[in-house]
């Protein structure tokens, strides 16, 4: 069994040069992207990333006196392929701002306070059902240094390793009902309204978790379907 990758519907993926996002015109190719025949090289990929980079726990909100400031949040994510089949054993990297909208990063240095009890990064592996859970705090919004009123809505970053190289995905998850969602230049770079909606998590009743956190559910669909390869 292997994985077949078909082209995506372009309207489900972001435009590359985004009006009002000033770095994009300098960094995205001008020449047409080259179509290539699929070979084993793109239809294989790293399955044991965790042997090269360390896993970090799924609880980044802290406890007791070391608890992070913010609204406690329990995030339940399911990773699947285009057939809806769960992608188990996938390494997922998560990172986010703290409740004040500040990242722990040397490039984020002025607009909001650091929370000594919040680093904001987790690296996990999905279980057999493609699921992973994270106990964290809800990230804050923050202004982008374009100085023209663009604020990023609260969001969580994900980087995922599927079964093959072409399934690699970097994406962002948003929260329902946030007024900044409608004007965010990154979320709205995806042309198709339904595809945008799928980037927004679903809030579910905050029951069934032991620490009474807000609960959000989200689905991430990696490219690819299972395929039977005919060996020559």
């Amino acid at each position, binding site marked *: 069994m*292997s994985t077949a990758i078909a082209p995506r519907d372009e309207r*489900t*993926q*972001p435009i*590359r040069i*985004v009006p009002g*996002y000033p*770095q994009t*015109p*300098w*960094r*995205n*190719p*001008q*020449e*047409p*992207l*080259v*179509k*290539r*025949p699929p070979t*084993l*090289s*793109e239809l*294989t*990929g*790293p399955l044991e990333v965790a*042997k*090269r*980079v*360390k896993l970090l726990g799924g609880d980044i909100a802290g406890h007791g006196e070391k608890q992070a400031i913010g609204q406690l949040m329990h995030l339940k994510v399911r990773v*699947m*392929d*285009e*057939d809806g089949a769960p992608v188990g054993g996938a390494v997922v*990297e998560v*990172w986010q701002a703290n409740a004040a909208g500040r990242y*722990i*990063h040397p*490039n*984020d240095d002025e607009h909001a306070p650091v929370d000594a009890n919040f680093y904001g*990064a987790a690296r996990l592996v999905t279980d057999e059902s493609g699921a992973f859970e994270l106990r964290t705090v809800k990230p804050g919004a923050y202004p982008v240094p374009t100085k023209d009123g663009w604020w990023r809505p609260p969001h969580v*970053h994900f*980087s995922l390793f599927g079964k*093959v*190289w*072409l399934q*690699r*995905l*970097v*994406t*962002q998850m948003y929260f329902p009902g946030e007024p900044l969602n409608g004007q965010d230049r*990154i979320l709205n770079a995806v042309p198709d309204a*339904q595809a945008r909606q*799928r*980037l927004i998590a679903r809030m579910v009743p905050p029951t069934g978790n032991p620490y009474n956190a807000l609960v959000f559910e989200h689905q*991430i*669909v*990696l490219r690819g379907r299972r395929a039977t390869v005919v*060996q020559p």
Partner: protein
Amino acid sequence: MIPTGEATIGPFFPPRYVDAGANDLTQLEGRAAQGEAIEILGCVRQEDSAPLDNLVLEIWQADAKGIYRHPADPRQREADPNFLGWGRAATDKQGNYRFRTVRPGAPAGRTRHVNFMVMFSGLMRILKTTMFFEGEQANDADPVLMAVPAARRALLVARQEAPGEYRFELKLRGAHETPFFDD
């Protein structure tokens, strides 16, 4: 189901995610990989040639015998147990990156090569390309390199600067723009 929309990695990818040693593919859990150790290095620039700092690169390649550590490769059982095939590096203030790896063997039907991914603030989607090695006769028959317009192929061929040291420059846009693939 519709594949999830990509988004930029942004400027705040956690520094600890580029773990020390993540750019060294020549060993796995302390055991040395088979084959000739080589270095791949270069600078990443944008349209105005400004070097790009804080950019994340990942590579994926076959082992020294041209085998992928993956069940889709019919030769997987013969794969080097000490070669993972994947690594990650970030660029420094001067836009420079460096990987230590082993010279990949030629997989069936291909010339030897290393796959690259570029992730960066302002890139709404991952950019994917492939590096080839200078002086390889099989380059002229490689289906991926031959898919690139002839005038641009040389931009994907790394130059040997010293024994075992290859320079692969990446230009994201503009003059000498690196060919990227539409996958």
